[in-house]
């Protein structure tokens, strides 16, 4: 359980980090908080020859709340999100999801950029990024490019990040004040990766109906998913017991999780249906009638 040998590089500036990544290409890997990468190294699931530590680069830990977007630097830690009162108001769904990330000690060190780059299928932040239609900004010697979160996550632990690119920002669309939302996940042990999780949000139309519905899932596919078929069930309707049940049924029908060592696919599918019902009920402020569920 010791990491394979590597050379350690600690650039002082962003340009130095990008130059180091460009120089060493696929032999190099950026490390920030290291809360996903160090276990990967300990298990020898990856063995880069160079680790480029971006942890000391200034200004990469900024949280900017503007009218047009909420921007998080790659070195923003879960702890920073949890403790930012302005962010609780500016993006409550993000903050609630982050409270589910791993354990206290991990949240003190794990970062936004690290979670996105690691791309665990059950990780909370990638799920929020896809559900919210976030944009990820990447920088390389060729300059900056922006990529939609839904196009960034390619497969489990696999992203569109090129070897010489560094994540420099996660940009979330602004959050209207009266939006209804919830985030629900289930893990067998507190702090474990979730077996499944769901994020729901919608705005309230003039007649109290749900509009602009977004429903996203984690843990049930190789990447986080937006489930437009489930969104369509809720779109334009008010949240009632029967609508909640219909979203749960649609959720089960929308996903096809594979069997793995943690759970059979059928179990995960059923779990996801239940979690979707709970999430929609919670977003709507309705107590789910368990006998009907």
């Amino acid at each position, binding site marked *: *359980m010791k990491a394979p040998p590597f050379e350690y590089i600690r650039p002082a500036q962003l340009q130095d980090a990008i130059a180091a990544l460009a120089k060493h290409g696929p032999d190099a890997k950026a490390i920030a908080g290291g809360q996903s990468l160090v*276990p990967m*190294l300990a298990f020898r699931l990856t063995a880069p020859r160079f680790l480029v530590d971006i942890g000391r680069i200034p200004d990469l830990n900024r949280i900017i709340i503007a009218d047009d977007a909420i921007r998080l630097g790659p070195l923003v830690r879960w702890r920073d999100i949890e403790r930012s009162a302005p962010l609780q108001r500016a993006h409550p769904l993000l903050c609630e999801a982050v409270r589910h990330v791993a354990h206290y000690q*991990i949240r*003190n060190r794990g970062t936004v950029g690290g979670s996105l780059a690691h791309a665990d299928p059950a990780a909370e932040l990638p799920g929020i990024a896809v559900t919210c239609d976030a944009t990820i900004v990447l920088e390389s010697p060729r300059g900056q490019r922006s990529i939609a979160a839904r196009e960034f996550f390619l497969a489990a632990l696999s992203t569109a990040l090129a070897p010489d690119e560094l994540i420099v920002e996660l940009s979330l669309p602004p959050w209207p004040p009266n939006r209804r939302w919830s985030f629900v996940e289930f893990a067998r*042990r507190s702090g474990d990766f979730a077996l499944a999780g769901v994020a729901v949000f919608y705005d309230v139309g003039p007649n109290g109906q749900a509009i602009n519905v977004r429903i996203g899932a984690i843990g049930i596919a190789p990447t986080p998913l937006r489930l437009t078929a489930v969104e369509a069930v809720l779109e334009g309707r008010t949240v009632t017991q029967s609508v909640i049940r219909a979203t749960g049924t649609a959720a089960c029908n929308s996903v096809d999780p594979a069997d793995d060592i943690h759970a059979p696919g059928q179990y995960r599918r059923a779990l996801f249906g239940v979690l979707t019902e709970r999430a929609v009920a919670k977003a709507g402020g309705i107590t789910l009638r368990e006998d009907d569920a």
Partner: protein
Amino acid sequence: MLSSSVVRFTVNGKPVTATVEARMTLADCLRHELKLTGTHVGCEHGICGACTIIMDGAAVRSCLVFAMQAEQADIITVEGLAAADTLSPLQASFRKHHALQCGFCTPGILTTMHALLSEEPDASAERVREVLSGNICRCTGYVSIVEAVLDARTAYANKAAGGAAL
């Protein structure tokens, strides 16, 4: 063979220097290079919490930090909690409540709870349990640990109000 590098940081108030391979974790550096064996190593992949230390005020798993990343950091290990031979209020509370049996997990729990109560001296039982979920104890069943932590809160609240150092 890869070359070693020198890393400098502070442990329990004392400046230290160690010559380490880049791949050496902070946990191994503390134990093998600095001979501070109070920090225990359990799972070596960030699950068990036994190796928790306090880095620049925040509880972190020292098996998930490379020693080189600790350059210029301020580190507190379990050895740094007590003043000389006098138990800290948290340690004394663990003794009073029988909050340990084999003691393997205890250094990580003490450092975690010291960091928590230093920042949140009014932490609720629910909060203590939530944070404690990052530390695996196979002996106690956690009940006595929660009681010990809750009982120690007064000392931290007094400290926050300008009382004696912990």
